[in-house]
């Protein structure tokens, strides 16, 4: 008997706390059922429900409208100017073509294009940060020769020069080309440091994109 009273009481409290979202229809099905059942038996909660409806109505008051154009213009002035109308895919493709134009690199074009398309797809799908990225890059192989590896990086538009410099120094990287039309830079990194550098670059919050480019050894 006592146990049953306690149960009823805790059910009452649970339902009472859920009533605002019950009135709004934002509970899940099981909760909705729980409240429905309890309301049949509890006059207090039914009274509470009436009050909830009043609250909901009272909160529907309209506020004066604001000028979105003016507000956006104010914010726009604070954001860095950067016309970026070209879709990412085209930017990456152009970048790939530019990088791969020397004759000796031409055989790699197809392979590289596949990697770049894969990257673009991963970006569009929003799976860049974790698994997809790891997966994509493992498919590319490392250079056999001791000449520097090349890596494409893009920084967030807000990255300062000082920050960029710090990141480059920390990664043992030199800029060898860029900024490209796509606002990316090509870094040269000693092959034996490539893995560590790529990992480090990917850990930087102001680095948007890290793409090792060497595919020579794959041939």
């Amino acid at each position, binding site marked *: 008997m006592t146990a049953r009273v306690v149960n009823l009481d805790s059910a009452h409290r649970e339902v009472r706390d859920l009533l605002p979202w019950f009135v709004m229809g934002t509970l899940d099905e099981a909760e909705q059922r729980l409240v429905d059942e309890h309301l049949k038996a509890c006059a207090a909660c039914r009274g509470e429900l009436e009050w909830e409806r009043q609250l909901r109505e009272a909160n529907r008051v309209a506020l004066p409208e604001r000028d979105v154009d003016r507000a956006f213009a104010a*914010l726009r002035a604070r954001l860095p100017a950067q016309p970026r109308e070209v879709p990412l895919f085209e930017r990456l493709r152009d970048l790939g073509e530019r990088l791969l134009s020397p004759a000796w690199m031409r055989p790699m074009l197809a392979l590289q294009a596949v990697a770049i398309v894969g990257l673009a797809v991963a970006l569009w799908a929003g799976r860049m940060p974790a698994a997809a990225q790891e997966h994509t890059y493992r498919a590319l192989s490392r250079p056999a020769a001791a000449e520097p590896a090349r890596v494409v990086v893009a920084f967030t538009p807000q990255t300062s020069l000082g920050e960029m410099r710090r990141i480059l120094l920390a990664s043992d990287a030199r800029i060898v080309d860029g900024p490209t039309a796509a606002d990316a830079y090509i870094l040269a990194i000693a092959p034996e440091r490539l893995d560590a550098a790529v990992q480090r670059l990917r850990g930087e919050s102001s680095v948007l994109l890290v793409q090792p480019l060497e595919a020579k050894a794959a041939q």
Partner: protein
Amino acid sequence: MLERIARGDMRAFETLYRAYFARLARFIERTTRRPELVEEILNDTMFVVSTSAHKFNRTSKASTWIFAIAYRKSLKALRDVDDPVEADDALEAVPDTDAIEPRDEVMRTQLRRILTEAVDALSANHRAVIELTYFQEAGYREIAEIMGCPIETVKTRMFHARRRLKALLPERLEDIL
């Protein structure tokens, strides 16, 4: 959308801005009840959205993420202007009931006004729960995410807000209800 914004796509950003403007302005105004600060807080919020879009991890809805930023910015603005966020004893602001006339339409309007004033007298985090629940139609789990607090805290805040509203409303009004 946030992925395009992360890459600096200004058109995507403007679309998002316009889509959220009215909802966010309202949420900020109801949470802070500082109309003069609303646009500044809103633009601070959207500035963070534009610069941190690449940090958005899809574990929550985009709207939850954006409202969470707006909530933090609202609380910060209140602290900056020394408006208490937690303190809950604004009882001086009890609405005046003498103005109520016993005619239906008038009564309804008065009731709304009084309830609105009563909500204004709550603390900022209580106002935020009320606004998110009744106007933005968010469930309590989403509200917990936005406010960065446990689900139980949301329920407790809501319960206290309701109790306080009742206490703030004069007896005569309770009869009307």
